[in-house]
């Protein structure tokens, strides 16, 4: 709780004065009259023409958000208008969300981008209004007579620019929806707005390039199958060097019991690769019969940030590969939006996967009835179950060089309600875990500020602003408990939080949960371990007394 929270007298004064969120010259005007400006650091590059063409998307061209003329197609207004009508009919939730908002303002100060920028268009209610105001323009006569009365406006190229700026300043994290008394999910409005923008070629390269890669190779990074295998084999060698244990992942093996799918960042990027090493150690430790697909080589799904159809297409490979490899069920790695797609959409989008079985842990016998429909289990649930049944030999002292806190990834926390499992694991693999303030964790978790495909370098300043509320909560435990390690279960978090921490909280390092599991696992036949998976020295393991019995 902030020590600077307003006093009753302050609130009373605010109420009596009724200050506008709009200042100065704009205090008496409509919100859409306030200026906005594309500047270095607050927008992402548009998709390259070859990327747009590869995907078969419309209006490929070279352009920039800084241009006056965005080279929109001749009939762009008609395309947007008809596109909106189609989606209003197709998605009942969209119409409900657009119609039901009463502007109560409960969401207003819940958005990390609003808190980090102070820009009123980043209030979820106003962000939704960007689209709603155009939707309301079905009554142009009323608008003509009573200008501003209906809250509607014409669809102009300025509106498209505004959409492009602010729908890419929403990470679809859904924190606002937790506080909405009507349950309006602004993320779904953002998703539709982005879908509409893609219809006229207003897009984002950091999203469409991975989508094109995934469409071509099966993963966002465009890793070809042989490179995918080589990377994991390289990690196997690292594990052998560090632990003396040879793990044996298999690839595209038909008849394996489980298909393991994780974000490709875990196979290619730092610090994701250390999380991958943790998975490999865990699976070897319990003798899991699993295989990894070089085609379904991506858990994430940037289609979700593009269009419903693209999300469906990119997701389909999971079930295709599971069927082709004749596995019993699918185990999924640490990712955020992957789990929103899997948990909320996959079954109805590409299921039912009747060829798979309701997942049962081969080690503990636990039936994961929560995954009865999708046939896909989250690795944190799987590992927590193993620990609960005492199937893992763990030495939490091996993480004593870390003082940890846990960042709930938005989509896992709010999208599937998983709060306890990662904490249970952390409690068992390390001795020092401290929670961030209550209103910044679990269902109220703050986004990293870089989710939903806005993690581009050129957008860095905006990301630092949007991620500030999360960083501020980390600062709290850093100051209070000397926390130096931020643990998370999302690939985008692992990619983006290191920069956020380095800016706002130097000295705080980002870890995947299963990297810490990998550190703590006592493997059969291992050599004396003195370093963690990053080859950093473990505390108390540099002499015989610190060795494990």
């Amino acid at each position, binding site marked *: 709780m902030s020590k600077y929270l307003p006093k009753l007298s302050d609130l009373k004064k605010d109420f009596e004065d009724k200050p506008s969120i709009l200042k100065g010259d704009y205090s008496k005007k409509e919100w859409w009259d306030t200026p906005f400006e594309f500047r270095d650091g607050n927008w992402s590059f548009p998709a390259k023409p070859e990327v747009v063409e590869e995907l078969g998307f419309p209006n490929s061209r070279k352009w920039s958000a800084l241009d006056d003329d965005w080279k929109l197609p001749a009939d762009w207004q008609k395309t947007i208008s008809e596109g909106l009508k189609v989606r209003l009919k197709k998605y009942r939730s969209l119409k409900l969300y657009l119609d039901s908002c009463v502007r109560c303002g409960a969401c207003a100060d819940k958005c990390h981008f609003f808190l980090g920028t102070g820009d009123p268009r980043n209030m979820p209610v106003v962000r939704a209004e960007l689209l709603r105001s155009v939707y309301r323009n079905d009554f142009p006569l009323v608008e003509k007579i009573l200008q501003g009365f209906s809250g509607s406006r014409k669809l102009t190229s300025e509106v498209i620019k505004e959409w492009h700026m602010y729908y890419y300043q929403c990470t679809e994290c859904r924190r606002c929806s937790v506080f909405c008394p009507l349950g309006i999910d602004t993320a779904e409005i953002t998703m539709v707005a982005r879908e509409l923008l893609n219809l006229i070629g207003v897009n984002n390269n950091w999203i469409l390039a991975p989508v094109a890669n995934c469409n071509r190779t099966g993963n966002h990074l465009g890793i070809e199958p042989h490179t995918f295998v080589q990377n994991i084999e390289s990690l196997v060698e690292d594990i052998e060097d560090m632990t003396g244990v040879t793990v044996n992942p298999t690839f595209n093996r038909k008849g394996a019991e489980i298909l393991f799918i994780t974000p490709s960042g875990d196979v290619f990027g730092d610090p994701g690769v250390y999380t991958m090493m943790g998975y490999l150690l865990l699976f070897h430790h319990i003798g899991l019969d699993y295989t990894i697909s070089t085609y379904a080589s991506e858990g994430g799904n940037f289609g979700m940030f593009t269009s419903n159809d693209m999300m469906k297409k990119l997701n389909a490979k999971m079930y295709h590969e599971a069927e082709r490899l004749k596995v019993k069920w699918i185990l999924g790695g640490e990712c955020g939006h992957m789990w929103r797609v899997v948990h909320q959409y996959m079954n109805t989008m590409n299921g039912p996967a009747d060829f798979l079985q309701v997942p049962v842990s081969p080690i503990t016998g636990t039936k994961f009835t929560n995954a009865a429909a999708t046939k896909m289990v989250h690795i944190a649930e799987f590992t927590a179950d193993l620990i609960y049944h005492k199937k893992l030999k763990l030495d939490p002292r091996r993480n004593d060089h870390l003082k940890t806190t846990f960042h709930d990834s938005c989509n896992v926390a709010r999208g599937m309600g998983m709060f306890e499992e990662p904490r249970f694991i952390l409690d068992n693999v390390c001795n020092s875990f401290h929670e961030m303030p209550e209103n910044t964790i679990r269902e109220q978790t703050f986004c990293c500020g870089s989710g939903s495909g806005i993690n581009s*370098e050129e957008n860095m300043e905006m990301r630092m*602003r949007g991620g500030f509320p999360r960083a501020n909560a980390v600062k709290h435990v850093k100051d209070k408990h000397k926390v130096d390690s931020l643990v998370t279960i999302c690939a985008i978090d692992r990619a983006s939080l290191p920069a956020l921490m380095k*800016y706002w909280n130097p000295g705080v390092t980002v870890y995947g949960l299963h990297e810490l599991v990998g550190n703590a696992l006592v493997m059969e036949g291992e050599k004396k371990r003195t370093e963690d998976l990053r080859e950093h020295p473990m505390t108390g393991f540099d002499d015989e007394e610190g060795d494990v019995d």
Partner: protein
Amino acid sequence: MSKAMGRVIQQNRKEILAGWHGKALALFSEKMARGTPIFDLLHEAMGMILDGFEEGGESCTEGLSSFSRIFAIHPFPPSRSMRLFFELQTILMAFVSDDESRDLLQTRIKEIMLEACDDFMAHREKIYQLKVEERQRSMFMALRRAEG
């Protein structure tokens, strides 16, 4: 002056900080409300600068770094952020009466502002460093292979 100034600041800290903090919040394009993280962090940073105003030291240095870190990522020009130190000067001038103290106050404000400029630029450089490091991290395995 400095000791006298430090005493004046401590005696009127709440009033000075409220006035200065208000000027900082006014820089943002729209309302930055009470209870928001930026409101809190700015309040804390500006308080630290005031506490170390007299002789500098760790409090002042940390406060300036925190202050500059916030403004280095916001879209208004650096001159607009740095102008806040002139605002502080104006606020403090109301509390000193003799010319000598005023001159010394101006000198101290200039010193602090120059330190803040250095901090501001360091944070701008950090942004570019973060971009490079992020790119390196995203290509970790490729770089590792290239390095043999």
